[in-house]
């Protein structure tokens, strides 16, 4: 499969990007970071839209290597991009936008375009002009167009930024299904930890133009550099999505459990409305600056975090090795 290896340096005005990481050729890798951390610049560099120092390698092919002055132009890289603003061609209809990609795809790798159209549910839109599509429709057409070009690797720059709530979750589901169906390695940029957890098998976390943490999602999110990226109320941990009862079969790989949303008990609770009661063992108790305590608990769905008060820690005698039960409301899983 086509793994992606990146080691680049890029200067744009006062902003510096310095990133070295490996992206496996299967699965979905999420590039996570606050705005201004260099996520979009990183994507542009990988796609070849801006020149950078260092190298980018896809599988065995060097796409760029400043050491030998190699800079493959974007149209030869075989890397597709779905932009935040869709960027459909305004002088073409939806059908013509799709044909634009199809005509330029390598003949031996062309996909069944009707099949792709059905998959993204854009068949009824084909003869519309792109000017009067809704935000969600534009995103789906952009995805279909990118897929029809038959790239070896697909980059997605916050493709759901324009969508809200329900539509956003539906779109994430489309991405997950698409990944399963078309077996295309993907790199998805987002600044939302919930979106990241829903999609990611692998993580590249960026902060101020540098890689703060990288690796398999559940491990990378436990690296010390990662917690510093999060807003304090987003502080939490990745839990396996398959093992949690989330009210619907989401197919999501992970769910982000916020420490603020987890209640701890030292005896198995009975007669309670929480759907998820996870038994585990306390791994550590850390006192935060504001006096609250973060309790790390090893459970069957992974290591999770719970924020409790100092009094609660004393009262429940929470300490390393202690047995405890974590209570998670289904509601908390649908951020």
């Amino acid at each position, binding site marked *: 499969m086509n793994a992606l290896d990146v080691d680049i340096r890029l200067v744009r005005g006062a902003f510096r990007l310095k990133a070295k990481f490996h992206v496996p050729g299967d699965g979905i890798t999420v590039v996570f970071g606050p705005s201004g951390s260099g996520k979009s610049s990183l994507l542009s560099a990988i796609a070849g839209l801006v020149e950078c120092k260092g190298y980018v390698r896809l599988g065995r092919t060097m796409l760029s290597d400043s050491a030998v002055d190699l800079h493959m132009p974007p149209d*030869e890289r075989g890397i597709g991009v779905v932009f935040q603003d869709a960027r459909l061609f305004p*002088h073409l209809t939806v059908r013509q936008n799709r044909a634009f990609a199809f005509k330029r795809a390598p003949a031996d790798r062309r996909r069944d375009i009707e099949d792709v159209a059905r998959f993204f549910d854009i068949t009824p839109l084909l003869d519309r002009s792109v*000017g009067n599509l809704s935000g969600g429709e534009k995103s789906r057409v952009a995805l279909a167009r990118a897929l029809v070009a038959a790239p070896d690797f697909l980059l997605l720059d916050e493709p759901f930024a324009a969508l809200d709530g329900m539509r956003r979750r539906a779109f994430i589901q489309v991405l997950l299904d698409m990944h399963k169906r078309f077996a295309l390695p993907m790199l998805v940029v987002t600044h939302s930890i919930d979106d990241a957890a829903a999609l990611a098998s692998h993580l590249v976390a960026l902060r101020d133009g540098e890689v703060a943490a990288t690796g398999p999602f559940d491990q990378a999110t436990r690296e010390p550099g990662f917690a510093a990226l999060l807003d304090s109320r987003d502080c939490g941990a990745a839990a396996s999505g398959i093992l949690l009862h989330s009210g619907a079969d989401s197919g999501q790989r992970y769910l982000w459990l916020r420490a603020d949303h987890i209640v701890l008990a030292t005896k198995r609770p009975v007669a309670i409305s929480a759907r998820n009661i996870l038994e585990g063992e306390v791994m550590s108790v850390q006192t935060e600056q504001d006096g609250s305590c973060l309790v790390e608990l090893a459970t069957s769905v992974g290591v999770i975090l719970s924020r409790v008060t100092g009094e609660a820690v004393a009262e429940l005698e929470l300490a390393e090795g202690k047995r405890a039960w974590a209570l998670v409301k289904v509601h908390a899983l649908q951020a």
Partner: protein
Amino acid sequence: MLSAAEAQILSTSFSVASLALLWSLPVAIACAFLLARQFPGKFLLDGLVHLPIILPPVLTGFLLLLLFGRNGPIGHWLEQVAGIHLAFTRKGAALATAVMIFPMLVRASRIAFEALDPRLLDAAAVLRAGPWDRFFSIALPLAGPGILAGAVTAFAAGMGEFGAVITFAANIPGQTQTLPLAIYAVLQQPGGESEALRLAGLSFTLAMSGLIGAEFLQRWMTRRLKG
């Protein structure tokens, strides 16, 4: 309606302006596309493009004579290689007109290219479209209405070029005598005012239809483009 002589003058004007547009437009589009982006020495090209506006038209005609006349370096070469005479011929009138309308064409095309969202070209690039492909399939169609409107205006203006044309191609009825040159010729004769007035009216009507036509064409194409 029109006398035989007037019809001939009109046809000369049309053929000179058409030929001029045909030669000038492709070069102007290329120049405009270059000027819509940054590159070293841009100001030089920018200055060169605007030269025909700044120079007196007679001087432009004279420079053309020096370059493209029988003894000029390019004119001599053209005669040797292809047997083409430019000075004092209809093709010469078209060349002088082409040079004069060139800045107008570049300006209209450049504005159209600058209004183009460069991110669409990036989007085309990651769909495997190379640089030429992007130019012809994205940039040119999207800039089309602006370029076409500029071309219609330039065509109308081209039918009225005087100084450079008369200097380089002279005033030969049936050959190089376009509308303004004919007006000039009849004014030189005693009692030619009424004929001059008729030709002036013709010239004015054509120029106005050109301007109005350009405006409507641009609106219609833009509407079609945006759906």
